[in-house]
């Protein structure tokens, strides 16, 4: 069989997997060796991992989509603009993430070099998930990604909290993977294929609003519901969210940074491929309960966030409510909805990166900080000790809350606009009200940063300039994209148009 150039598509994944294996061998032979006296390799491995990720993002960037076949590897990998864009986003964000967490790993004495290897593994899983075009590939990619997440959550072996978080994440994740497999097997039993392209070819003639009188599709919808529920488990939407605050709170901060910021986009890509690409005719079936779930998750994310005293669980609830907003624009069923979804998720990743990055970089000067869990009170009067950091933090929070001088306003506005265009007036109205409520806890953090009535604030270790430049780069994007959002709108519009 002659393999043509246009069929070889996933260079970046192949490169990443081979280099992970080489990195493992390198680390094992150097580090676990009596003669080398168990060298600590994690800094050099971290730099190598950054290099590998830069190269694989470069490989993605060089993939010319118009030369490649649309589907490759027996129709199981799709090379479209959606996977291209999301893979680049994930790669770039992970590079900066690795650069930011370096100091934290030193402080927390996470000395095994495998931590970084596992992060690379999860990036590989996310890349595969972005380009998966059938249910088996998607399942394997989800497994690769979530198994590495369980390990990341449980990585700090000497802390019971971390072990508990890992165990909890593992049990619930395994449960949701089981649901995915159950749903996928039902879908396979009914349709006779696992390929998204086949689904599209089989069900293209079902237009929305059809009553399917001549074809019973109950069992298919049953299986589809299970697949969606398992993906909602991974996204931590409301009836399935109970693991999220615990896991975020108890696992090491660098791990929960990664859980919160990076993987959501890949799961949304899979959701888009299932609900829009293959089963768009069934939109009347999945739409209503998706709207209910999004409504509930915005509700719980806004109200339960008011009670939180720890910054990490606060961010967990905030991420739950953001997933709710994303699901609103997901359920509209229009091209504008997908465009707004992408706008929102890109800004969500950037702003989440800023907040978690600042959170991980501020290190208190006392023994208490070794515990790694920060109360909101630990940030009191950050204005006095580090003026620019406080300024950046507060403006990022404004953007997350959706206040006008930042780009967060535009994307939230876009989500509600797409909901109103799809005549979901009540959903839009109530979600705007909930969004006002959730603004309260963002502004409370700003009040703690600036206007606390205490004479003595906290002292922090100085932050390295290189790290702060990264944060400031992302912060600059907020203002730049507010002044000139064309770039954001252009790429998201291209994704949403080329997707169908």
């Amino acid at each position, binding site marked *: 069989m002659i393999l043509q150039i246009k069929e070889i598509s996933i260079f970046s994944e192949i490169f990443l997997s081979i280099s992970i294996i080489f990195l493992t061998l390198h680390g094992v032979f150097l580090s676990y060796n009596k003669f080398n006296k168990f060298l600590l390799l994690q800094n050099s491995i971290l730099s190598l991992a950054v290099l590998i990720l830069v190269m694989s993002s470069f490989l993605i960037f060089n993939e010319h989509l118009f030369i490649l076949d649309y589907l490759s590897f027996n129709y*199981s990998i799709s090379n479209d603009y959606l996977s291209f864009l999301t893979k680049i986003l994930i790669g770039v964000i992970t590079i900066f993430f690795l650069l930011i967490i370096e100091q934290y790993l030193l402080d927390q004495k996470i000395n095994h070099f495998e931590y970084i290897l596992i992060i690379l593994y999860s990036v590989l899983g996310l890349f595969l998930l972005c380009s998966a075009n059938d249910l088996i590939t998607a399942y394997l990619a989800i497994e690769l990604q979530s198994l590495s997440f369980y390990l990341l959550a449980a990585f700090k072996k000497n802390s019971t909290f971390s072990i508990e978080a890992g165990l909890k994440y593992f049990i619930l994740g395994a449960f949701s993977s089981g649901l995915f497999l159950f749903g996928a097997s039902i879908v396979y039993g009914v349709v006779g294929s696992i390929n998204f392209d086949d689904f599209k070819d089989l069900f293209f003639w079902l237009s929305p609003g059809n009553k399917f009188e001549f074809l019973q599709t109950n*069992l298919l919808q049953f299986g589809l519901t299970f697949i969606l529920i398992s993906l909602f488990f991974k996204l931590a939407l409301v009836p399935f969210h109970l693991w999220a605050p615990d896991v975020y709170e108890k696992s090491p901060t660098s791990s929960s940074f990664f859980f919160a910021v990076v993987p959501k986009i890949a799961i949304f890509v899979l959701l888009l491929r299932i609900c829009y690409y293959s089963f768009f005719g069934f939109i009347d079936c999945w739409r209503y309960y998706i709207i209910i779930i999004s409504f509930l998750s915005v509700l719980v994310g806004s109200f339960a966030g008011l009670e939180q005293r720890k910054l990490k669980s606060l961010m967990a609830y905030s991420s739950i409510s953001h997933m709710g907003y994303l699901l609103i624009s997901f359920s509209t069923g229009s091209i504008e909805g997908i465009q707004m979804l992408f706008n929102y998720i890109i800004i969500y990743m950037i702003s989440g990166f800023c907040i978690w990055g600042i959170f991980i970089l501020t290190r208190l000067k006392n023994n208490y900080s070794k515990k790694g869990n920060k109360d909101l009170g630990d940030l009191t009067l950050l204005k006095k000790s580090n003026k620019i950091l406080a300024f950046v933090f507060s403006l990022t929070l404004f953007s997350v809350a959706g206040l006008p001088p930042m780009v967060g306003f535009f994307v939230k506005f876009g989500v509600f606009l797409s909901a109103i265009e799809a005549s979901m007036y009540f959903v839009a109205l109530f979600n705007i009200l909930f969004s006002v409520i959730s603004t309260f806890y963002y502004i409370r953090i700003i009040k703690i940063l600036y206007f606390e009535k205490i004479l003595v604030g906290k002292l922090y270790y100085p932050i390295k300039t290189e790290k702060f430049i990264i944060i400031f780069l992302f912060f600059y994007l907020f203002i730049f994209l507010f002044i000139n959002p064309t770039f954001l709108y252009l790429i998201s519009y291209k994704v949403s148009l080329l997707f169908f």
Partner: protein
Amino acid sequence: MVEHWNHNPKDKGSKPFFIKFMFLNSLSYFFSNIIILSCFMVIFVNNSILSTLFLVLSFIAASCLLFLFECEFIALMFVIIYVGAIAVLFLFVVMMLNVKTINLTKNNFKYLPFAFFVGVVFLIESFLIISQNFKNNSYYQKIFLNSYKNWYDKLDSLTEIEIIGQIIYTHYVLQFLVAGLILFLVVIGAVILTADFSYKNLKNQSSYKQLSRKYQNVLLI
């Protein structure tokens, strides 16, 4: 199953055929009931060795069921992998680890009513949908006409291992490699989470302790 096979006009009334499928049906019901019962026992039995043995029983019954469906290769793999490796591994874990006996039987029934309720609702719903869907062939005389195909002409005489090999190594190469990567990741994770590289607390086998263990006081869950 029986009624379905009787629809075949050639074999109508032929007794050996009917008896064969009767026999296969009853055997498959028998083995699937054994699977369900042993799964229940795995959960509800207090002694963990007994529950592991019930796990082995459920695997063996599943492989028997696969033999009935003529998937010999997968059935043998089931026996070798699950019964041979995993169950023995479980037994080793149970025998070696000195986990203190904790009696959790009281808490077991705390959530039982709610779980029972949810499970029954789920079961009824799935039964309803499945029975609704397979009552009649929804494609029959509708849009997609089923044309008659003699499947025996279409079959190649390939053995099962050949077919699985062809599928794995040509159609699903990528997925096969990803599964290998997942196993690699799991090995790394297991080593990290369990191994302790300091010299102070090396784990040694104390044969006295192992020999003095008895069947009664192995950990209860």
